[in-house]
């Protein structure tokens, strides 16, 4: 069976007044059905651009795909005509974005917004009616845990709380029964208790439908609690990836180690937290070789060439010369 999503050697350049920034620098990522992949990294590391690229939502120009392929169910997304892409978006690939308050139109009823998406999703397959779509919308709202779903279809977004709006957006993303859900910081704007509910809901949907999820987040706690796999990104590269248990219990890349050491946990005494000195490299003129080397305590002459990604144990892959030994 082919992988659901295969990103191979993806390079993305972004044109700016000062030249072209090399924002994705050879991304390799394979996601299978039923897997929840956390894509983590700090601001500007390219995690959102990776997610947007999967449904080719990065505007070109200013962006330019320099190399690589994105295979979704075996078809190359990057060379697909726009009409084919539209059959994927919202239907085979669902998307959820960060801010639930700005992604719903405040002047239309929740039910109408869901029905529109359901009809758009169905347009490319069997014909469906508005009544049937409305029925489906009610069932989806019920599934994402909105009480009295059918009676809330005629409510407007402002009548829903932040957590409920995010559930509506999840329902909207799932109404076309996608096989891949791309969720970009879906819980960042929410309180922790609501975040826990939303993540539990996503996990439940994966168990029920066998879809795959790409969960883009900066929160390693969220990854540890709800993902099966994780890819750690730094300055346009995936520096480490694998099963969550492998990566979080035995981080092999110095950046992953530094990221974990920066999180205040129960066992860290006050003042003992490890910050990460320096700042992210300028992507207009990135350092040659490993982009983390200028901030890395273990950097050596060998880091001047881009380290190959090697497997340290089944499925756990690291792009660091330390792992080559």
């Amino acid at each position, binding site marked *: 069976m082919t992988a659901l999503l295969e990103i191979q050697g993806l390079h993305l350049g972004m044109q700016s007044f000062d030249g072209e920034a090399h924002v994705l620098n050879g991304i390799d990522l394979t996601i299978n059905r039923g897997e929840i992949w956390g894509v983590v990294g700090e601001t500007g590391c390219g995690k959102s651009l990776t997610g947007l690229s999967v449904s080719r939502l990065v505007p070109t120009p200013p962006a330019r795909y320099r190399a690589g392929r994105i295979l979704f169910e075996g078809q190359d997304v990057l060379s697909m005509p726009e009409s084919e892409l539209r059959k994927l978006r919202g239907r085979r690939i669902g998307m959820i974005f960060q801010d639930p308050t700005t992604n719903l139109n405040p002047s239309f009823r929740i039910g109408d917004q869901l029905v529109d998406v359901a009809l758009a999703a169905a347009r490319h397959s069997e014909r469906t009616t508005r009544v049937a779509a409305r029925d489906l919308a009610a069932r989806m709202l019920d599934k994402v845990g909105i009480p009295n779903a059918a009676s809330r279809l005629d409510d407007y977004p402002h009548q829903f709380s932040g957590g409920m709006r995010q559930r509506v957006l999840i329902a909207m993303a799932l109404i076309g029964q996608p096989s891949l859900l791309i969720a970009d910081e879906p819980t960042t704007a929410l309180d*922790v*208790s609501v975040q*826990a509910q939303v993540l539990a809901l996503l996990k439940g949907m994966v168990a029920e439908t066998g879809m795959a999820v790409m969960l883009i987040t900066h*929160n390693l706690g969220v990854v540890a609690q709800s993902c099966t796999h994780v890819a750690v990104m730094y300055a346009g590269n995936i520096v480490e990836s694998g099963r969550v248990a492998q990566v979080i219990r035995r981080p092999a890349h110095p950046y992953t180690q530094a*990221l*974990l050491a920066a*999180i*205040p*946990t129960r066992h860290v005494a006050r003042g003992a937290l490890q910050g990460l000195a320096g700042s992210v490299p300028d992507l207009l003129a990135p350092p040659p070789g490993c982009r983390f080397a200028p901030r890395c305590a273990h950097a050596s002459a060998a880091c001047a060439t881009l380290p190959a990604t090697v497997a340290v144990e089944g499925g756990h892959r690291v792009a660091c010369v330390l792992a080559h030994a």
Partner: protein
Amino acid sequence: MLEIEGLTKTFMRGGLLRKSAPVTALRDVSLTVAKGESFGLVGESGSGKSTLARCILRLDQPTSGRILFEGQDMARLSPAAMRRLRARIQVVWQDPYASLNPRMSVHDIVTEPLVVHRAAIGLDSRGRTERAARILAQVGLGPQHLHRYPHEFSGGQRQRIGIARALVTEPALLLLDEPTSALDVSVQAQVLNLLVDLQARLGLTYFFISHDLSVIRYICDRVALLHRGELVEQGPTDTIFDAPRHEVTRTLLAAMPEVVVPD
């Protein structure tokens, strides 16, 4: 240092034609913050954290109850005394991008509180610049940064500028409203360490507001939990985290995503 007694704040709602029920944002909140400690205030959005902060800063007037700072009832102070007191309570805001004026240089941002409080502090222009340079050095920036503008700095550096601005009047109490929630974790770690270090060196008292329990656990000696405007639990940090008594606290702690892989 700070005593809050039976603080209640209600907001009136409704417009010209219709009156609706007033909203009680804070209900009978009492707490004390001792000199030199880090006091953490936790709560979800809408729980009243920011309203409490605004009452302490006197940006809002409490409906009832008292706030005593160093034993003085803030509501009974003369305007002149209140102005002097404001130099002793400073605040660091959440968003280091929004809270620094992009058209002011770091020098002007950091010395502005000294200009505002020149009657109480009494520094001339040169004295203000010297003070600003000294405070910038304490937060890990240098005199070479004085004549730069906010856009030339990263998020973590901007928050250092915000902290420098708060410290420049040599306050006794620093109110920190989600000071790291807009920052990446590696930068957050640096800012938290800076705060720990500054407190040890300057003997500051912190009133730390956050929805991030892991940050509160790291930095605070005592914690209070606000839920729908009421203080449901308060106590030493270890007690609250290890043996929470209230259901709300337990729910919140259970929802906290720890970086531990479940078996």
